[in-house]
């Protein structure tokens, strides 16, 4: 490592930490330089959040040394680390929703006289800071809950800066942001870097890492396996370091002979969202669907599952005309849905793996309204094994599983139903690379068994890697259908943004 000339703000060396028999960190190193943005990547469980928690003083390491601003620190607490100028922006927003911007910026460091706080002074000062750091004209009397997620992130960063942060660690800061907000957040982070602040950026999104970071430290199995310059090492190379295998394996290819059309959509229309949508998905086929936010792609998927009621057009499954007015009917007609918001709609965290998997198909395991535990257990155990869901036992709560395994439980629910059509809405969001590969394998297997799969995704790499054909929606209409060599992320991006259309030509 070229430590010599660079200005090091934080240096963690030889950090190890065990939790009982589990080695969370094994001789891990992390070096954070001033005036630079460091990406920190790795699969879930690779140790990136543990090492960050060590730095934050939340977890005590078993061994290793930490040097902050040239001083070796023996033990850290969350309070002492903040005093040293190291601040953390956690993934879940930790702002009081009913506080004003001014109050949020100075939370814990209120300005005022004795026991009285001066809200006006805090608001004035906060507005000043927002203007100075970000050129942002945000009325500091605004309530936090009225801000966009991106603005809340900015307020959190401002809070750190108000306390003279020299190191800023952001954990998955873009997870809840839309594209435009991500861009403006990046703008802010670059400006901070140019002011000499050390920024650590943790993300699952490789394109963001590539775009933003000066250096990337990759973690795997509790240790750092390398630090690279993302402008020189392509994304594939970084992913290969994370999963310790070739990226070609990430999108496993398959040879499937397509069968008859299973899902037939004709002239579907929903006022204000989309119109004249028609396409087929054949047995064994994986069809991608993509479009920018507001393009109508999402609403098409919602109509197919009866979450919204289409105003016109027809949907057929295996030749039967469906009346899709509620999810109840969609499920009965053999349509399975993997919703984007897994925690709200996909799996019930407070129920067991068993209860989640059998939820949509209980009738199959029951007689005269009573559930037969033996046939349920048998089916659930089979699916846990089949999908290699990592769970201690079938009665463990889904809450205790990792994101990828939760997603597999959500898929298992529909396998248990023997659905014919699978509609997936961003199935790999917030899922680590290893679990993504397993989900892709699963989609391939489902397709291999003759299911029709419609994959709504905004991850263009994923669409190109997994789908046989990708449909692009632009302003409520099908703007193109891409397959074979014409199906590449440049073409998809161009069609989504309206720059180009109709690679294969759309039937309608």
């Amino acid at each position, binding site marked *: 490592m070229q430590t010599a000339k660079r200005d090091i703000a934080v240096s963690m060396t030889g950090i190890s930490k065990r939790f009982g028999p589990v080695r969370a960190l094994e001789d891990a190193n992390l070096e954070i330089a001033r005036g630079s943005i460091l990406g920190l990547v790795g699969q879930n469980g690779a140790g990136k959040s543990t090492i960050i928690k060590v730095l934050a003083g939340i977890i005590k390491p078993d061994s290793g040394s930490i040097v902050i601003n040239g001083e070796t620190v023996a033990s850290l607490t969350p309070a002492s680390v903040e005093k040293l100028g190291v601040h953390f922006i956690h993934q879940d927003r930790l702002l009081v929703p009913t506080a004003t911007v001014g109050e949020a910026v100075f939370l814990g460091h209120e300005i005022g006289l004795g026991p009285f706080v001066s809200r006006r002074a805090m608001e004035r000062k906060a507005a000043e800071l927002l203007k100075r750091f970000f050129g942002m004209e945000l009325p500091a009397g605004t309530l936090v809950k009225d801000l966009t997620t991106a603005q809340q992130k900015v307020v959190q960063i401002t809070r750190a800066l108000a306390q003279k942060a020299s190191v800023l660690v952001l954990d998955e800061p873009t997870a809840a942001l839309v594209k435009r907000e991500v861009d403006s957040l990046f703008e802010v982070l670059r400006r901070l870097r140019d002011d000499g602040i050390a920024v650590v950026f943790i993300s699952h999104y490789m394109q963001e890492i590539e775009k933003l970071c000066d250096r990337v430290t990759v973690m795997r199995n509790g240790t750092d396996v390398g630090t690279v310059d993302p402008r020189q090492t392509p994304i594939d190379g970084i992913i290969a370091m994370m999963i310790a295998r070739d990226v070609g394996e990430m999108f496993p290819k398959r040879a499937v002979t397509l069968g008859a059309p299973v899902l037939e959509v004709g002239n579907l229309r929903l006022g204000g969202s989309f119109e004249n949508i028609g396409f087929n998905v054949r047995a064994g086929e994986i069809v991608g669907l993509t479009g920018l936010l507001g393009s109508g792609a999402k609403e098409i998927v919602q109509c197919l599952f009866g979450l919204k009621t289409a105003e016109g057009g027809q949907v057929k499954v295996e030749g039967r005309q469906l009346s899709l007015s509620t999810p109840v009917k969609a499920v009965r007609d053999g349509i399975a849905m993997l919703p984007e918001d897994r925690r709200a709609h*996909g799996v*019930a965290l407070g129920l067991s793996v068993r209860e989640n998997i059998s939820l*949509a198909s*209980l009738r199959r395991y029951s007689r005269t309204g009573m559930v037969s535990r033996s046939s349920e257990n048998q089916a659930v155990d089979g699916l846990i094994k089949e999908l290699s869901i990592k769970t201690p036992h079938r009665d463990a709560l889904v809450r205790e599983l990792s994101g990828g395994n939760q997603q597999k439980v959500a898929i298992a*629910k529909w396998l248990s139903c023997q659905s014919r059509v699978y509609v997936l809405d961003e199935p790999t969001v917030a899922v680590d690379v290893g679990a993504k590969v397993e989900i892709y394998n699963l989609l391939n297997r489902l397709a291999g068994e003759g299911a029709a799969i419609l994959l709504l995704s905004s991850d263009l790499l994923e669409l190109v890697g997994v789908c046989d054909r990708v449909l692009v929606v632009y302003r409520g209409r099908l703007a193109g259908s891409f397959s074979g060599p014409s199906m590449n992320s440049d073409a998809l991006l161009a069609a989504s943004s309206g720059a180009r259309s109709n690679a294969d030509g759309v039937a309608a």
Partner: protein
Amino acid sequence: MSVSANDSAKVSVRGFLAKYSVLIAFAAIVIFFAIASPTFLTPANLFNVLVNNVVMLAIVALGLTIVISSGGIDLSVGVSVDMASMIFVMLLAAGYSGVVGVAGGLGAALIVGILNAILITRLNISPFLATLGVLFIGQSTQQLATSGGQPIYLTSGYAADQFNAIARTALLGIPTPVVVLIVLAVAVHLLLHRSVFGRYVQAMGAQPGVAWYSGIRVPRELSMVHVLCALLAGVTGILLSATVKSYVPLSGNAFLLDAIGATFIGTTLSHERKPSVIGTLLGVLLLAIVKNGLLLVGWNFYWQQVGIGVLVFLVLAASFGLRRAAH
């Protein structure tokens, strides 16, 4: 997060205490009253506790257990008790047979349940507010129907006497009302913990969005939940009238808070704080024994309420606090 072996032993002791805090409290209270009052453990007293303090409250609490499992609440159970009681007594007083009386009483409770179901599933009013509204309406209705709240007594009449007699008989040595409770408890247990319907109820309680996205007919199942709760409360209304041979307006409300308290005491048995039939029955027994014991040792009615309040705090705090420490 794992811990060393020594710690985990401590943790499991705490976990055990947290899990069984109700049972431990139960045992401690029984021992305390057994020492404090010579009459407490006599068969006559225990019979009295069971028949007069446990059965009717427990049946209402069974209904609330279903509703609370579904993620809702029913504040109008007292109204269901009263309506069933009122119609039952009115029909018997008018000379109708017992069968007609029971059918009428349950029918009245059914109407309350259906009203709740419509407000919640059709008009999308939250269960708390919908049933609160029904509570107000139900109370006024009773006062209007009884010229400001006059009780109706069943002085004579064949059917009334017959019912009162049944309430005092025993089947195989078990008092009839207790038999009714056992049958209903087993039925609700099977329904909630073994049936498809019960699974749907648990899913709606855990995460309503997931239930909807899994193709469950949420409005229909939720309607069933509220109707069942009202019907169970109606059974209590009929038992109440049969026991006291009268209908006293607004007497059903006494069950509401005790039943909610018992159900939540029962949730401490489950790691996920889910209501269960067994937990609820234990909660009811605990409340009934404390009330009876305090009475026997000479506390007056108002101090009994204080005692119960303190008990609920202690059991819940012990369970929550120890469980947090166990993590």
